[in-house]
């Protein structure tokens, strides 16, 4: 049951990602990104990382992307205009893209371990308890540093948004 589900949602993720780039209207692009995020969450779920899957939906699809959509609606951004293609894009665009994807996949394949295969359902450390424990023991320093980084970003946003200081 896992393999067909994986194939289905991997396909949806890739299709949404392509649609994200191809769409001309910002709202369609933003919603394609939501599609990518939701199908990624399903892939996490298939791998046994249920907490990460839920967090992905709540934080990215539910909060971050709603803000994106909100801003696009507020600014009432219209459809993009396609610029007339230069001959460079016409002749070299697709071959260069193929070469680029080939190089990337070659490098990633080289980085992967040779023998270990991903087996669905073997990973059981994805619950909220295990993730919480890992965050507060093994990854305590990165966790705290990230939270301070976000705090700095919030303060920066407030400083930029205020008219007089």
């Amino acid at each position: 049951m896992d393999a067909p589900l994986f194939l289905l949602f991997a396909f949806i993720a890739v299709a949404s990602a392509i649609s994200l780039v191809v769409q001309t209207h910002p709202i369609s692009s933003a919603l394609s990104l939501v599609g990518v995020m939701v199908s990624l969450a399903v892939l996490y779920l298939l791998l046994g990382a249920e907490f990460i899957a839920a967090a992905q939906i709540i934080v990215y699809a539910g909060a971050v992307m709603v803000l994106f959509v909100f801003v696009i609606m507020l600014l009432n951004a219209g459809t993009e205009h396609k610029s007339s293609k230069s001959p460079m894009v016409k002749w070299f665009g697709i071959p260069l893209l193929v070469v680029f994807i080939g190089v990337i996949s070659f490098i990633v394949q080289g980085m992967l371990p040779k023998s270990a295969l991903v087996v669905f359902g073997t990973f059981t450390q994805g619950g909220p308890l295990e993730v919480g424990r890992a965050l507060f023991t093994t990854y305590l320093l990165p966790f705290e540093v990230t939270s301070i980084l976000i705090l700095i970003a919030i303060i920066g946003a407030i400083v930029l948004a205020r008219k007089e200081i």
Partner: protein
Amino acid sequence: MNFFILSLIKAGLIAFVLLTTLAYLQWIERKVLAHIQLRVGPQRVGPHGLLQPLADVVKLLTKEDLLPPYVNKFFYMLAPFLAVTVALIAISVLPFGPEIEVFGVKTWMQLTDLKIGVLVVLGLSSIGVYGVALAGWASNNKYSLIGGLRSSAQMISYELPLALAIAAPLLLSNSLSFREIVDTQAGYYFGVIPRWNVIPQIFGFLIFMIAAFAETNRIPFDLPEAENELVAGFHVEYSSMKFAAFFMAEYANMVTVTAVATLIFLGGWHAPFPVEYGSGFIPTLLFVGSGAIALYHGLHPARPFDRITLPITGVVFFGIGLLFLVPVLQPILLPLFWFTAKTGALLFVYIWIRGTLPRFRYDQLMKFAWTFLFPAALLNLLITALLVAVFPNQ
């Protein structure tokens, strides 16, 4: 294969009961509102308007389905579908009662119990925003757009206090599965006072309910559809079944939110006082009492047709009351009664508030969320976390 058949039966049963509840919730709302405002409410279709929901369904199904020429077709069609689907899915992780045995088959009164059940409900509610926001935008109408924008801003703002208010009782229960959360609330302090989370978490409960009102776009936070300024807000361009989908989504969200409040704060299906003091007889007492009142008024009728309808109602209530005394049915009916009673009481509060309070102004709404509700929820969570850390075994 047994598992699939069982799940299919349960899913069908839950879907049927939920959809009927949604239809009749609207009848109850209209009736209660009418009585608050000294009217009689729906009265023509069936006795006391009881068949009104059916008539409404037929009306909505047969109405002309308009597709305005200026809308963005794809998103216009997607929005109501998304809203209602997401709202209805949430019920699948909510338990209504303990493990029961029917004809020798042991099963939980729940479709599925996830280790991350609470997070699933939160995630679905955050996806639900898209339905409203997209409907507002795709309609290509200025009132709709303002409604959609208001709704997305409001729902992002109130999701934070909502999640923080839930986090505090979760610390006490030490789990994210609804089943385990309810299990930790079983039993009684000093043998009488229930161990419900609402007692140590009364502030958390109040914050949760306020945020829940805003999340479901209900009065006093119904700015996305404020009738007197935005006509009907985000769904002004929708007709027929697409309008009904938004309507259903709103009521389904209400049911989900009150059920979650019942499960997390009010002890789920546990009785408010122990069986030794006779909590098992409360439903019988209530139903037989109501039946007796109906019978009395049937014998002294104020209107001619009461002579027939009220005695019938009385006898039916007597029957239901006696069902609660059958030992075989008790383990199924009693938890279901307490769960329904608590959820129903909260739903009544929803309707009561709709009949009582005026609408907030938009700046008041945002100020209230960020300067009062959010800090209060954070403080509540901090104090709870501190107490849990200092007294780990309480």
